[in-house]
């Protein structure tokens, strides 16, 4: 007979064994990947500006008939509109100059729609004439593009606001606009409108609107009466696909589950799952629709790996061909009647590559092979893929048992145990690092400079389901979320990745905040920090955003404060806010004893520059070794000036080199030195050592 302690031991073991097995699997997978990376040849060091090249091609889009590809080409500071025949032949320039940022085809393929921040422009591409601006976007009415109207040959759906006045409250409306700019009011509502779906006759069959803190989908009957169909409350995510099939709409939603998936609404109001990540890991990332009837054909997921699945046999067959041709890649697909447009993304692939796929013959053709733009605006070259690091998925278990995901980058051909390790923390925090993401290039840059780079998707990150995102429970101080990052780093060190004496932390926005937390509360782990646009007090910054125009940009539809409350961050809860403040780097500036580099933007509308300056002032007063660069024209996402990005790379490399021992940065050229001289506000010991000082006040 078993004793009670033995029973308990067995029970514990029974529970612990699967977890241990998972840990062992994760470790084994990591070791295998590390070994592969180590076996690769050592990469040469590439110049700094090679990581800063930008694509010259953007807005690539396939016509519904699949016979033409439209795109924007930027050259010498001018953006032009081009049309490429899918069957071969030379591209044709349609517009010599445009400020458009996005392109769409009309449903009949006879018009190209050019979206710029202020207007929507229709370009006739079938020789019919009549090109011109058809609608204003933005502005007082906050005109916003919703979709190409799939029920009409050539029309778009816009969402507009009728601002509140003293006499009447705010109202919202859906407006159909044809290519001559004629407007048809489809629906006007006292609630904020979000999304719509049409039936085949062109009638607005479903609409989604904000009701309190919920997104509610209503069926619109033939008399225009609305009947609630689906209520997405408590931050459930829902969005409609443009067309209903047999009167039944498709939804992207996490209703009834944890992961966002493709659902279909039945006539009785029940929701049926059409497709969900077969790996049971990631939210639905993208859906590819049939250009003819709007039926979803392909579903893509981007968790720890990028994968696409055909939703019918034909799509599955074609995807099989593409997967064989582009193994491990993230594929961005657009379907046309004759061709498919294939956008190829990879973690070691700088920029996106474009191909045309003929589904009848299975042939692929590379298109749009224009060279990227260098820092100086001149044609440059993509970095060679063979010399780039690869994004290795990693998973670790937090102290509370939650399984977390992230990615590791290793310099090819190097012993990972001897490498300095950099935790590169993403912003948000409601955001995430996706699989097969080359990204801005900072990770690859650091890898090329000899660092192992760890990108944790801490709890609160998006892309891994609702529970993963909400698991943060508002604990964004020196609490659970920060521990996820710290434990991830320690786990990697425990697996023989990185030198524990040479660990740094780098991040932007929330990542910058995490960096400040790291050098303040975990200085024994993080020896140096580089924080870009960091809020030094998360609670204060949230309150500040709530008063600014940025609030609705973040929460999108639901009022910002309600949205935060649903994310367990109640701005009106003095206890919760007090706790966050008490755990903030701002309140513990005296504890910050690591070399720190701060970046701030004068036009940052999300992280108040006053917070960064106040924090830097506090550190200076305390005699801390801090460096501060302020770009007066930069926003939250940095500056459009190439030299500003180069400055970030240079200074980051300098700080990490001096404290973690990576490769020394190439000294700055005259333009960069000039920029640094004008933008530096505080030069600590590291910048001082290389002769960088702020320009004294005249």
């Amino acid at each position, binding site marked *: 007979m078993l004793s009670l302690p033995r029973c308990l031991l067995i029970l514990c073991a029974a529970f612990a064994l699967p977890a241990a097995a998972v840990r062992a699997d994760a470790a084994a997978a990591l070791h295998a990947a590390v070994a592969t990376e180590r076996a690769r040849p050592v990469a040469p060091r590439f110049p700094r500006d090679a990581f800063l090249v930008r694509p010259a091609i953007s807005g690539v889009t396939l016509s519904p008939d699949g016979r033409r590809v439209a795109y924007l080409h930027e050259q010498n500071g001018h953006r032009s509109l081009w049309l490429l025949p899918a069957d071969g032949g030379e591209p044709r320039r349609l517009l010599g100059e445009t400020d458009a940022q996005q392109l769409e085809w009309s449903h009949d393929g006879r018009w190209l729609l050019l979206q710029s921040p202020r207007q929507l422009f229709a370009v006739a591409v079938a020789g019919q004439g009549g090109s011109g601006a058809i609608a204003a976007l933005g502005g007082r009415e906050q005109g916003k593009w919703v979709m190409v109207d799939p029920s009409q040959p050539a029309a778009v759906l816009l969402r507009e606001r009728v601002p509140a006045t*003293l006499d009447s409250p705010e109202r919202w409306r859906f407006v159909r606009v044809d290519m001559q700019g004629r407007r048809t009011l489809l629906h006007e509502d006292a609630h904020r409108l979000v999304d719509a779906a049409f039936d085949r006759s062109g009638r607005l069959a479903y609409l989604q609107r904000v009701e309190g803190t919920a997104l509610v989908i209503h069926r619109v009957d033939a008399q225009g009466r609305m009947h609630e169909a689906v209520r997405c409350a408590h931050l459930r995510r829902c969005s409609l696909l443009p067309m209903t099939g047999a009167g039944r709409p498709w939804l992207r939603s996490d209703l009834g589950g944890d992961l966002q998936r493709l659902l279909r609404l039945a006539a009785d109001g029940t929701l049926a799952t059409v497709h969900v990540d077969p790996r049971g890991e990631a939210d639905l990332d993208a859906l590819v629709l049939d250009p003819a009837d709007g039926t979803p054909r392909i579903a893509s997921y981007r968790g720890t790996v990028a994968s696409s699945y055909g939703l019918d046999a034909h799509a599955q067959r074609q995807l099989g061909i593409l997967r064989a041709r582009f193994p491990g890649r993230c594929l961005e697909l657009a379907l046309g009647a004759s061709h498919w447009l294939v956008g190829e993304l990879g973690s070691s692939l700088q920029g996106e590559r474009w191909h045309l796929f003929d589904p009848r013959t299975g042939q692929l053709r590379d298109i749009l092979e224009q060279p990227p733009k260098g820092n100086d605006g001149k044609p440059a070259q993509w970095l060679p893929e063979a010399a780039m690091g690869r994004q290795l998925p990693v998973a670790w278990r937090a102290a509370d048992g939650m399984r977390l995901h992230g990615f590791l980058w290793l310099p090819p051909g190097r012993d990972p145990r001897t490498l300095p390790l950099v935790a590169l923390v993403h912003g948000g925090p409601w955001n995430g690092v996706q699989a097969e993401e080359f990204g801005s290039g900072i990770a690859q840059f650091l890898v090329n400079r000899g660092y192992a780079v760890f990108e944790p998707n801490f709890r609160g990150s998006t892309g891994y389901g609702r529970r993963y995102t909400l698991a943060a429970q508002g604990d964004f101080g020196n609490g659970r979320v920060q521990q996820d990052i710290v434990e991830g780093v320690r786990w990697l060190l425990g697996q023989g990745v990185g030198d524990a004496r040479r660990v740094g932390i780098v991040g932007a926005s929330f990542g910058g905040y995490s960096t400040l937390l790291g050098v303040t509360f975990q200085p024994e782990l993080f020896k140096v920090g580089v924080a870009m646009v960091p809020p030094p007090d998360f609670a204060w910054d949230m309150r500040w955003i709530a008063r*600014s*125009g940025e609030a609705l940009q973040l929460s999108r539809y639901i009022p910002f404060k309600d949205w935060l409350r649903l994310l367990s961050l109640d701005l009106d809860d003095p206890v919760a806010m007090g706790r966050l403040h008490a755990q903030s780097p701002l309140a513990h500036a005296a504890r910050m004893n690591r070399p720190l580099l701060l970046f701030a933007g*004068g036009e940052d*509308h999300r992280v*108040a520059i006053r917070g960064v*300056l106040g924090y830097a002032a506090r550190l200076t007063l305390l005699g801390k070794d801090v460096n501060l660069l302020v770009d007066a024209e930069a926003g939250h996402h940095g500056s459009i000036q190439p030299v500003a990005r180069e400055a970030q790379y240079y200074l980051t490399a300098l700080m990490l080199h001096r404290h973690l021992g990576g490769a020394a940065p190439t000294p700055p050229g005259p333009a960069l030195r000039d920029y640094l001289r004008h933008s530096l*506000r505080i030069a600590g010991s590291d910048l001082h050592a290389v002769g960088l000082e702020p320009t004294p006040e005249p």
Partner: protein
Amino acid sequence: MRDLVKAELLRFRGWALGAFAAHLLVLAFLARVVDLAQQPLLVYRVFGSIYVLAGVLLGLYQMGSYRRPNVWLNLLHRPLAPWRIATSLLGAGLAWLAVAAALPVLLAAAYQSGLTARVVDDRHWLLPLAAWLLAAGGYLAGACCMLGTRKRSAAALVLLVAVALNQASGVWALLVQALALAWLVAMLIVSFKPDLSAPPRAPLATVLLALPLQMAVYLMILLLQFGGQMLWIMQGSHPNNTETPPRGGANETERMSPKQRMLAGLAVSRAAQAPLWREQVALSDVAGIGLDLHAVPVRGALTNAAPTDFDDAGRGVRWTFSHDRMRLAGYRIVGGRAAGTLGVGAANAAFPAPTVAIGGLPGQPKGDRSLIAGNMLYHYVSDSARVLPRIRLPAGEWLLGVTPVGENLAVLSDRALYFFDGRDVVLGEALLAPRQRMPIPGAAGDLRDLDLIELVDGYLVSASFTSYAYMMDGAAPYQALSWVHDDGQVTTVARRALVFDYPAWFRYQAWWPSPALYALRQGALGLFAVPDPLQATHPAPMPRGIKLLAAGLMLVSLLAALWLVRRRALSMPARMGWVLACGAIGLPALASLWLLYPACELAGRRAEGQSALASAAPL
């Protein structure tokens, strides 16, 4: 008398009609290219100066042509009282001035009113009268200059200076001009006598001539002081133009950059956070809070203290504020057709005060504008051509400017600085509620620089009160730093007393030469004027030494008058009156006594000559 008038009219007919035609041509040309009714103050000042100058020249010429002894004798040798002769000459001159100065303005106003959609308010119909009053004032002053001894006759011009500097507006300004005109008429009548050099004898005539003379002497003293200041500047040690301004003074503070100014203020702060703020100021871009209004527009004012119109390029409409309707009146920029009137909200209500258009607020569409009207800020929505109230300050305050500060708005009134959340500007169109209010720690007129930085927990605001520290109207210069806490609480964290850059005698140079005339000057400048909130100051207490200096000068003046009156042919009451006046008014009165009354012997000889002339006249 009629013949004299007719002859004088005929005499100046050519000149007057020529001036009328030239004036009309100029106005007609300008009316084609600009809206003459909505011109900035400078344009009206230029026109007014020309009218005055033309009047002065006419007066000088007309009376100068009669002033030669034989002509003068001939003129007065008529069976008419001198005042009737004067009235005849003046009547003709004033009539021609009405034709040359006022009639073209009247025709221009009629053209704008009848043939265009431009705004012509009641106030604009007063402009012809104003033009005539100015020209007539100049004319009478010019005439007076010719009817007296050289030493004192130019004193009449001082009344023109008073008109130019008076701060009344609208019909009150016309009343001031009319009063000056009346005084000049009286001066001219009492001066229009056979012996042009004879001093006044009647008490009223004495006052009429002596007071402007004393003011002119006072003005000369001020001009001499000004000249001395110019020499001081040329010499290079004037605080305004030394390379290094006096340490700790108002000038030094004014010359500082906003950042230096804040740091200087923080240097004397004993607040616990001051060291931290110093670091933050050193890192921050200090924002300067500016004014969009530099003068408060007054309803019915003849001129425009601030622009009254703005263009909506998107709609192709120019909106002009109409004082009569208290609404905006529009007309098409191309074609000039009327485009209706625009008031506040759907009810098209009247604005509470004349509006001034400034730029749109951050986040508002490009064509939108903000309108300041009294204590209100309105949003002109170009899309719908509607005007919506957005900010309402407490009644009685004047909204003076709006400055974006980071994500928020700083709104300055004559009494306080307000902060509004930037989000609310964009999200809706309702009235905004201020998050913080900081009373200005001083008077609006003294405020020279208002600088601030954003803190994590509010704002640090520096206010420097140095505007009039160089003169007696201003406050003793100082700088105050306030911490506007996020919860709305305002704490003064530093007050830095600044040093006067100028000695007391310099600052009070307008006062000590004659406290009485200084008071008269101030009274004349403010006569019928609505106090300008932007000029309100908290004057520093007057030093005792200055009072003693003024008293000493008055005593010297009194003693000198005692000595002087004994050497002038004056009656005992006149002597007593002059002695008392010199004691009360000071040196200008003494100078006027000396200028008005020649020494006894000379006066006696002149009296004899004059009586001989008078006895010969009937022959």
